[in-house]
């Protein structure tokens, strides 16, 4: 696992910086255009989640490999209020005030792997992975 970049999310503009950085890394790792777009879109959803619910957090972009496959792994960490009901948050109907509730389930659909841990009062950590085909 190689750390490529770490980005702080503190203001709304950081969502754009973060998705641009992920797109650049995806391009360098030679993901195809559709996968670059999936990765960029999922990153935008999850970075916005941090900004909206926790106010600030960190996004870590890493290159990983497994069984000769190369992948891009992105971790979204915050010390915000945490999510009370993960099942509900991962469901399609979850409505946030701006995102239409597509943030988490949407990002999961766009990526190959998705894991989330969240503790009330301590924060949330989401890791997503896309493997190069």
């Amino acid at each position, binding site marked *: 696992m190689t750390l490529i970049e770490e980005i702080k999310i503190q203001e709304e503009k950081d*969502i754009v910086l973060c998705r641009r950085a992920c797109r650049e890394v995806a391009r360098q790792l030679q993901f195809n255009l*559709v996968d670059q777009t*999936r990765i960029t*879109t999922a990153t935008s959803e999850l970075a*916005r989640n941090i900004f909206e619910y926790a106010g600030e957090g960190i996004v870590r972009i890493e290159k990983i490999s497994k069984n000769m496959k190369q992948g891009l792994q992105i971790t979204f960490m915050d010390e915000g209020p945490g999510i009370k009901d993960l099942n509900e948050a991962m469901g*399609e109907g979850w409505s946030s005030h701006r995102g*239409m509730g*597509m943030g988490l389930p*949407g990002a999961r659909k766009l990526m190959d792997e998705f894991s989330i841990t969240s503790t009330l009062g301590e924060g949330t950590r989401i890791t997503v992975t896309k493997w190069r085909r």
Partner: protein
Amino acid sequence: MELRIPILKIQDYLIVPIQIDMDDATASRLQQDILTKIEMTEASGVLIDISVMEMVDSYLGRILGDTARMANLMGAEVVLIGMQPAIAITLVELGLRLEGIYTALNIDQGIQLLDNLITQKEENGGS
């Protein structure tokens, strides 16, 4: 520095070329600018060119859809033009279908679609 997307007027139509990766504030500002410009110019149609947009997430998708519906309420038609294949794929996978939104492959087809929509409206209104 605040970014602003230009809005051009050609005959009865407004053309909005989105050439940058917009942050949320810029997108929301654009929505207001388009509606204000419709009122000021009495434009009957709006073409939003998204052909160079590299991604549309749920927030931007919702802003685009809402803008079209709001313009409809005011009496103007909106057509999104030039959506890249990768964006169409991600939008559908994301579950964002932009229902009721008119789209066209390019600016020529967009203008033709607007012409047709507006002719239809005039015919219905006149009967």
